[in-house]
């Protein structure tokens, strides 16, 4: 029954999430990112730190993760840094807008392969990448936090649906041993 493809799905506690929109190539951008200890991630890349991760979302959009307790201050600092630099940018606390899940184990790639139209082979996706896509019928983003583990975020209102999808897909990988 493909026991060796066991997959664990865990709903994670909320963390701090900050949305940054702006010209990421601008002069002020490195300083702004350094407030949270990040540099600019490359296209479709994630930079991970102890406290969280900086996710590339689009050419003018990043999502910055941090500990839940430090988000309020980080937003204030970033907003005032923008004002000082007269930067045209949007910084918003979106910590409450999304739910987080960890998918881990030897069957983690397979689990997401059942729900997302993304090449999740080792050749197609690996640590350091982030992908915004859909999971079944709703939007999501995921990245790898280890060789066999993913973190996935989705909108808060559909967290029960997404959790159901993940648990359902993780249940049995029978017949997929060869992948």
């Amino acid at each position, binding site marked *: 029954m493909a026991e060796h493809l066991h997959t664990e799905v865990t709903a994670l506690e909320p963390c701090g999430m900050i949305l940054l929109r702006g010209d990421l190539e601008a002069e002020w951008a490195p300083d702004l990112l350094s407030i949270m200890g990040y540099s600019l991630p490359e*296209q*479709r890349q994630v930079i991970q730190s102890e406290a969280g991760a900086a996710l590339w*979302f*689009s*050419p003018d*959009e990043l999502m910055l993760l941090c500990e839940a307790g430090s988000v309020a201050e980080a937003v204030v600092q970033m907003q005032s840094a923008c004002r000082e630099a007269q930067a045209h940018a949007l910084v918003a606390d979106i910590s409450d807008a999304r739910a987080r899940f960890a998918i881990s184990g030897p069957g983690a790639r397979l689990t997401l392969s059942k729900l997302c*139209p993304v090449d999740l082979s080792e050749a197609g996706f690996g640590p350091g990448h982030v*992908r*915004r*896509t*859909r999971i079944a019928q709703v*939007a999501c983003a995921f990245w790898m936090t280890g060789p066999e583990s993913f973190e996935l975020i989705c909108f808060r209102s559909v967290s029960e649906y997404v959790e159901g999808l993940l648990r359902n897909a993780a249940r049995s990988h029978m017949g997929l041993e060869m992948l």
Partner: protein
Amino acid sequence: MLILTCPYCGVRAEETELAPGGEAHLKRVDPEGSPEALEEYLFHRANPKGVHFERWRHAYGCGKWFLAARDTVSMEVFGTYPAQISEPPQELIDTIRARRPGWEPV
């Protein structure tokens, strides 16, 4: 089911990640425009058998709108390009001409 490369995030996105947006390079007509120009803008759309320029949004991905040149019969995609442009790029026009001798942009 189509697959189009989003020029913003580089993902070869399948159609289920995308939202269609109709014909590309429409010129907006404001209230100063003539009734004929307004009619053209609001209601008249090209529906060519062959090369067509169209708008797509990477709705489930980076959220960006982009433009694509596609053959509506063979489904060949000649290229995708960012939406911040009022005419198809010359390089793309050259590509299409090479692939479809005799084709001329409208």
